[in-house]
């Protein structure tokens, strides 16, 4: 599948003589050296690609450059070097006017603090993007109403943003982004300002929506649990660089360096891992012979534990063709929870 969005060697440097700074970074200069000269390298040599319908999460602590990276994707910030390709079109080569057209029609954005216009009603907020597109009033209000309903806000159209709770406000923000029918959704720490329960609700709702809408989403977060929950693929950023890109399992089981490893210590593995990561692939073939329950490679770790508790023997993992691809003995589950899995499945196999 070709990529919907591609970032090629993006650099963003703030301060004097940014081009020179990029040259020095390419030659191997570090961020600290540049800072001494008064220039700040916010993003250094970031490359990735996002497939259509994928949720791509950029994870990093504050100051890691993730928000700057996001703003280069829709041209709010102009990259100092590198290209952004959207459906094969180089956004960095567009004029301001063309870029505004792309933003109005194809890329929309959801903000950390919702950024709802306080002087517009909920409906007018949701219709804002359509208003910019020049859609006639009746149509844009109908479409805004649909988007609001999709986000669970039917009946709130005539309210004002300050009358809504934080979670509801962000639903308006989401509806505003969805109303324009943009293919690409940029979400900048969109759930970070919400309290944990609401945040979970919103994550669930986003995943639910994504099942039917199949948008391409770039999601920024500093919360690794959120990244693992939402991300089809995750990029971890540190000091302006992407240090690792991969699936949640890749990050969890094969951290690229100590920084990522230290990061994932606090992650609740049981929520992230699935049977495919835990199973022993050295299979005999008779594990599924009894008529008892089996798992698939996508079965979450917690379900696997429940299964295992009901069975006296290892859980069989079956693929789509009902062929046994692996087994999960109880001790492996316990070992994974204890952090043994950091060594990777190969070693587990070897020990088995």
């Amino acid at each position, binding site marked *: 599948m070709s990529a919907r969005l591609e970032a090629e060697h993006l650099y963003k440097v703030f301060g004097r003589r940014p081009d020179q700074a990029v040259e020095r970074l390419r030659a191997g200069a570090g961020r600290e050296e540049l800072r001494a000269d008064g220039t700040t390298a916010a993003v250094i040599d970031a490359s990735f690609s996002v497939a259509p319908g994928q949720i791509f999460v950029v994870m990093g602590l504050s100051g890691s450059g993730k928000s700057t990276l996001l703003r280069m994707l829709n041209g*709010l910030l102009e990259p100092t070097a590198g290209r952004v390709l959207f459906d094969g079109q180089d956004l960095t080569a567009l004029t301001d006017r063309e870029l505004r057209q792309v933003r*109005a029609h194809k*890329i929309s*954005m959801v*903000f950390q603090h919702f950024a709802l216009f306080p002087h517009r009603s909920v409906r007018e907020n949701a219709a804002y*993007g359509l208003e*910019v597109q020049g859609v006639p009033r009746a149509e844009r209000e109908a479409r805004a109403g649909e988007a609001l309903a999709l986000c669970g806000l039917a009946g709130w159209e005539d309210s004002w943003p300050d009358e809504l709770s934080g979670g509801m406000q962000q639903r308006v923000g989401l509806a505003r982004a969805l109303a324009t029918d943009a293919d690409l959704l940029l979400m900048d720490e969109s759930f970070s300002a919400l309290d944990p329960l609401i945040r979970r609700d919103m994550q669930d709702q986003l995943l639910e929506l994504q099942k039917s809408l199949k948008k391409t989403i770039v999601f920024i977060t500093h919360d690794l649990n959120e990244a693992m929950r939402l991300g089809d693929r995750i990029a971890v950023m540190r000091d302006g660089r992407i240090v690792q890109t991969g699936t949640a399992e890749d990050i969890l089981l094969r951290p690229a360096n100590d920084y990522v490893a230290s990061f994932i210590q606090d992650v609740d593995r049981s929520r992230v891992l699935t049977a495919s990561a835990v199973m022993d692939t050295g299979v005999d073939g008779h594990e599924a012979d009894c008529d008892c329950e089996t798992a698939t490679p996508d079965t979450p770790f917690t379900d696997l534990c429940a299964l295992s508790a009901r069975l006296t023997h290892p859980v069989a993992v079956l693929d789509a063709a009902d062929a046994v691809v692996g087994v999960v003995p109880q001790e492996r589950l316990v070992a994974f929870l204890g952090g043994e899995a950091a060594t990777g499945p190969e070693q587990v196999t070897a020990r088995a």
Partner: protein
Amino acid sequence: MPRLPLGDWVDSGVDWLVAHMSWLFDAIKTVVEGMYDGVNAVLTAPEPLLLAGILAVLAWWLRGLVAGVLAFAGFLLIDSLDLWDRSMSTLALVLVATVIALVISIPLGIWAARSKTVSAVVRPALDLLQTMPSMVLLIPAILFFGLGTSAGVIATLIFALAPGVRMTELGIRQVDAELVEAAEAFGTSPRDTLLRVQLPLALPTIMAGVNQVIMLGLSMVVIAGMVGTGGLGGAVNEAIGQLDIGFGFEAGVGIVVLAIYLDRMTGALGTQISPLGRRAAAKARTAESAKPWNYRPRPAFAVIGVVVLALVAGGLGVFGSASGTKATSATDVGKGKNITIGYIPWDEGIASTFLWKELLEERGYKVTTTQYAAGPLYTGVATGQVDFQTDAWLPTTHAEYWKKYGKQLEDLGSWYGSTSLELTVPSYVKDVNTLADLKTHASEFGGKITGIEPSAGMMGLLKTKVLKEYGLQGYDVVDGSTPAMLAELKRAYAKKQPIVVTLWSPHWAYSDYKLKKLSDPKGAWGKGDGVHTVSRKGFAADNPDVGKWLKDFRMTEAQLTGLEAQIQKSGKGQEQSAVRTWLKQHPGLVDRWAPVKQNQKSQAAG
């Protein structure tokens, strides 16, 4: 440190502007005066009560019933103080200055909010305009625009510009950056971002700026009154100049009523036109109980009410202005020709000015009199804004002005002489009869001589010559103003305290109080001045009759002090009727001072 000739540069810059840019200033002047005349015509057309009603309905709509009633009461008060026309002229001045200030300052504020460079350039310029003492800017304004409305409007405008720019810039910069980013992220063009997001959200702050512009404008009208804008500012100036505390207070109350009205209305307008403010107001209203005094007319109803009242008012205004008959007689030499007389609020100036106003009106001229400070008055006559003034003390006291403007002026001769300058003590102060006596009595007077404006010619003379001549360097000359000096004299006189003041003859103080002129055996004050009539260049040639009358005009001390006393007795605002009364008591003077040719007279008789 070498002396930086900054003042010379400014001088030559102003001269260059006057010489080369007069077309621009004339254009500005035409626009400003046109606006002012239009607004003033609208405000003065209806009956005062009707306009008060219209303004009250506006207040009712914007703020509620109580505000409406209070506004009506306030305007009634103004009308009952006989200040209606002056107030409307002040209101017109403030409105015009405000509109121009906003037309300049809001775009400038927007520009400054979008560009750091512009902001950095604009800020010190605004500081300069706002903190430069207003008189410093007022005099160049006269040179550029002449005396009257436009100089006043420009001076007001310059002073009031700063808050408009600052608050606009602040309002726009205050708008949450995330909101602006959100607008951009959805592809909004910079122009639409401004119109749809930044301006609506900045509106409350901008309206606070508008409010400040209006209030500062209003506070400037008194200063603007010094250059002949008339209105309440002119009234305050006249009152101050003549130590008329009561009239000054009345005019001050008029300004206060206007200020409160404009302040509350612009504040309420801010809530009405900003979407956020409207919502907050609607919320607050639903919380209130539905009492009758909380009822507000809907905007449509308010507009209809205002329009109906305005139509009625306009109709009455039309009928009102149609009346008025024109008397023609053989003594009508002037045939309605306009003549402008300017005067300094000194008693002999007021007396002679209103005397000539009466005489010339008797002879069919249309005469306008306006009060000025000495500097602006000379500028006005020199530039031809004012036809003549009767209170030039030459050759000594006004020597500086004559040196500067003499070439553009025509001296029509002295009508009273000679005057004298002196130090004066109340007659209850014993043992002090000559200037030399002061030396030994310094402690009695606290070592103080109560002076007048430091710019006055006699103050210079006193400090550089008189004190030295009599060895009075131990005295401190207190700079102040003529009214302050007179007030101090009045206070000391009432308590019978010793005081020594700078005074001159003729002066009404000599008839009101028992005073003693300290004799000047050494002649340090110099010879007395004559009080001259000074006109613009070519006035006598344009008006040969008036020119001749003025050249032949003489007054005796008895006549002058008698007229001054009559004016003093009649009180403020009654100068001309005092002159009329006085002329009736002295028949024949009219024909002596403004003779009409014999054949015309016989015609009149026949």
